[in-house]
C-alpha cells in the first residue's frame, strides 16, 4: 500500500514551481493513484507479530532477558562494538559511541537508501559498508557469527519501538520490486508469499501455525536452527519450502523483499532478539 503522506510530500513542494513541473506533478499524482488502484489489497487488520502465534513456552523464553538465547548474540555484539577492527584502527564505538543512544530507533527505520551510492541497505548491509568504508576491515560474510552478533546488538537497541519503514520516492522502485516478489508465484509448489502468510495466516501447516511473516523480531533465535539467524536465512528457508531457486543472502531481491515486509509490519514493535520455533 502507498502511504497517503507520499502524495502530501509532493504537494509540499515550493509554490514557485513553473508550469511544466506542475504538470509533471499532476501527472505523477495521477500515476500514484493508478498504482494505488492496481495495488488495491484487501484491507488488512492490525498486523500480528509472529510471537502471538507461538506457544506459551516460546513466548516465555523470549520474554526472559536472561533465558532468551538470542541475548548471547547481543552480548557478543556488544563486545565486538568496542573492539577496534581493520586498518583504520577504529571500532564501531569510535564513531557511533554508545549504541543504546546512537542506535536507538535505527533498526525500526531500515532498510534505507544509502545517501552516497543510492543502494538499498539493510542493517547487515550497512554494517558491512561501514566496515569497508570507515574501518577498512573488509565485509563480513552474511550469516557469520560476527555479523549476526553486530546486527542483533544494533537492532536490539530499537526493541519495543514500532517498525516505521517509510516508502518515499527514493525507495519506491525497491518497494515495488519487493511487493512483486511477495505476490509472485514461484517454485515447484507454485506458491507466493501471500498464499501462506496473508491468505492462510493463523491456520496450520503440519504442526506449525502459519504466521503473517513479519520480520520485526530478526535476527531471531530459532529453536529449529539451535542458533540465531538472519531474516534472509529465514526467507531462503521459505524459498526452499516452495522449492524455488534461493537468492543469495544479502542479494538485491531479498533486501527489496525485506523493505516490503517492513512496510507490512509498520506499527509492530521491534522484538530483536526474538525467539521462534
Amino acid at each position, binding site marked *: 500500500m502507498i502511504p497517503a503522506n507520499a502524495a502530501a510530500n509532493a504537494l509540499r513542494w515550493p509554490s514557485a514551481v513553473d508550469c511544466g513541473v506542475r504538470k509533471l506533478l499532476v501527472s505523477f499524482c495521477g500515476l500514484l493513484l493508478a498504482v494505488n488502484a492496481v495495488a488495491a489489497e484487501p484491507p488488512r487488520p492490525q498486523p500480528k507479530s509472529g510471537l502471538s502465534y507461538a506457544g506459551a513456552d516460546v513466548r516465555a523464553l523470549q520474554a526472559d532477558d536472561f533465558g532468551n538465547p538470542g541475548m*548471547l548474540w547481543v552480548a557478543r555484539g556488544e563486545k565486538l562494538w568496542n573492539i577496534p577492527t581493520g586498518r583504520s584502527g577504529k571500532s564501531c564505538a569510535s564513531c557511533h559511541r554508545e549504541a543504546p543512544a546512537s542506535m536507538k530507533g535505527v533498526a525500526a527505520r531500515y532498510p534505507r537508501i544509502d545517501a552516497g551510492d543510492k543502494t538499498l541497505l539493510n542493517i547487515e548491509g550497512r554494517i558491512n559498508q561501514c566496515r569497508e568504508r570507515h574501518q577498512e576491515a573488509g565485509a563480513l560474510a552474511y550469516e557469520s557469527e560476527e555479523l549476526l552478533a553486530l546486527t542483533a546488538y544494533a537492532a536490539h537497541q530499537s526493541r519495543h519501538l514500532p517498525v516505521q519503514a517509510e516508502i518515499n520516492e527514493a525507495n519506491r522502485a525497491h518497494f515495488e520490486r519487493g511487493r512483486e516478489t511477495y505476490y509472485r508465484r514461484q517454485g515447484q509448489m507454485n506458491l507466493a508469499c501471500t498464499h501462506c502468510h496473508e491468505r492462510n495466516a493463523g491456520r496450520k501447516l503440519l504442526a506449525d501455525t502459519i504466521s503473517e511473516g513479519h520480520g520485526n523480531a530478526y535476527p531471531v533465535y530459532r529453536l529449529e536452527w539451535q542458533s540465531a539467524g538472519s531474516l534472509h536465512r529465514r526467507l531462503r528457508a521459505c524459498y526452499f519450502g516452495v522449492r524455488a531457486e534461493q537468492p543469495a543472502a544479502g542479494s538485491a531481491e531479498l533486501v527489496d523483499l525485506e523493505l516490503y515486509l517492513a512496510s507490512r509490519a509498520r506499527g509492530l514493535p521491534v522484538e530483536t532478539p526474538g525467539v521462534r520455533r
Partner: protein
Amino acid sequence: MSMLARIQVPAQARRGDIIPIRIAIQHPMETGYRPDNFGRRITKNVINTLTCRYNGVEVFRAEMGSGVSANPQLQFYVRADSSGEFVFDWVDDSGERGSERAALAVSG
C-alpha cells in the same frame, strides 16, 4: 573470540537466603550424530564438564552429553552463607576452556 557466556548471580543477599544462579553458554553442542553436506559425520563436540565453585568450594557440577541443546542454560540454587565469588569453569570435547566469575555480597 573465546566461548561467550552470561551468568546471573544476585549482587547481594541476606545470610541464609536460597539464591538462584544461572549460566548460559554460547556453544553448538555438536552431537556427533549429524552428517555435514558431504555426508561425513561431524565430530562430537559438547561441553562435557562444567563446575561452579563458591569461595573455592565446589557447589555445582554438570556432566553433559549429546542430549543437551545448543547454547545450554543451567540453573541451580545455593545457600548464601558468606560474601565471596562464584567461579564457573567448563571444557568442551575439543579441549577449549571457558571461565566466568561473579561476586556476591552477603549481609546479616
